[in-house]
């Protein structure tokens, strides 16, 4: 990515441009979730009682746990960048590894959370869900859509950071060239950023 080969031995990497490209991509992600946030806002004002009732079903404790998990993982990935800038590849690898473990913990919590909803037959299209008032259907629909899309981003971020870890091991990402680590970290922070809004909107406000 953003690497241009010039002569036989000089490799030119424009990290500013590479980073800007990443930010442009993050803007599209922001609007992808932004659309859902707008739907949420309008539906909440239209069906405030149903939203109140439905939000009580969600487990705020799991939501809060996952918030802490993601915040800590955001710090470890940021520290990994510091480590490589300070020429400590092993520490950088370890910190990425911890980030990946935390991503796994997040997904595990999500699995139990969704699993519980499914065991109650609460999922889009189920008879239980169809029998709910219209506003509650909207709430759970948005809940599954938003947390599902977010979980997909956690998985993609996990894959991206695994690639980063492999390249750190092989020395392809090093003190001189760490654009991929920087961009991977930016993506991971975006995942965190979206969760910062999802958590209060879905789990806290009832």
């Amino acid at each position: 990515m953003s690497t241009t080969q010039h002569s036989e031995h000089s490799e030119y990497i424009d990290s500013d441009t590479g980073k800007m490209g990443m930010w442009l991509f993050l803007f599209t992600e922001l609007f992808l979730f932004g659309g859902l946030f707008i739907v949420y806002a309008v539906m909440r004002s239209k069906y405030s009682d149903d939203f109140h009732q439905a939000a009580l079903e969600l487990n705020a404790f799991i939501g809060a746990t996952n918030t802490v998990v993601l915040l800590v993982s955001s710090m470890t990935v940021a520290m990994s960048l510091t480590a490589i800038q300070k020429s400590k590849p092993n520490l950088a690898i370890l910190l990425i590894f911890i980030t990946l473990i935390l991503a796994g913990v997040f997904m595990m919590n999500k699995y139990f959370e969704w699993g519980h909803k499914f065991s109650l037959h609460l999922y889009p299209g189920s008879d239980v869900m169809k029998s709910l008032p219209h506003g509650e259907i909207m709430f759970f629909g948005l809940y599954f859509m938003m947390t599902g899309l977010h979980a997909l981003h956690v998985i993609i971020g996990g894959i991206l950071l695994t690639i980063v870890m492999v390249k750190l091991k092989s020395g392809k990402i090093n003190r001189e060239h760490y654009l991929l680590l920087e961009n991977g970290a930016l993506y991971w922070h975006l995942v965190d950023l979206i969760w910062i809004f999802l958590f209060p909107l879905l789990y806290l406000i009832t």
Partner: protein
Amino acid sequence: MKNHDDHISSYSLNLTVLLTLLILTTVSVLAIKFHFGAFTVAVALLIASVKAAIVLTYFMHLKFENLLLRLMVSGVFLLFAIVIVITFIDYSFR
């Protein structure tokens, strides 16, 4: 141009940022229990916005980026805010 002229955030700064974010999370969980009525959503969103700003500034290094990138990011967030405000004006006066 290589990466190595970039600003390096210290480990302690990262840790401080995390602790601040955790404190704000606790505040928002506790604040919800007080029931501000119509303002509950506003309070929760205000705290979330502060947290988001901290993540953008420190974890995502915007504080240390060039002016162009900072203007781009603020511009996009401004645009997003305008979209939301206009949606609500449209929706409330229908």
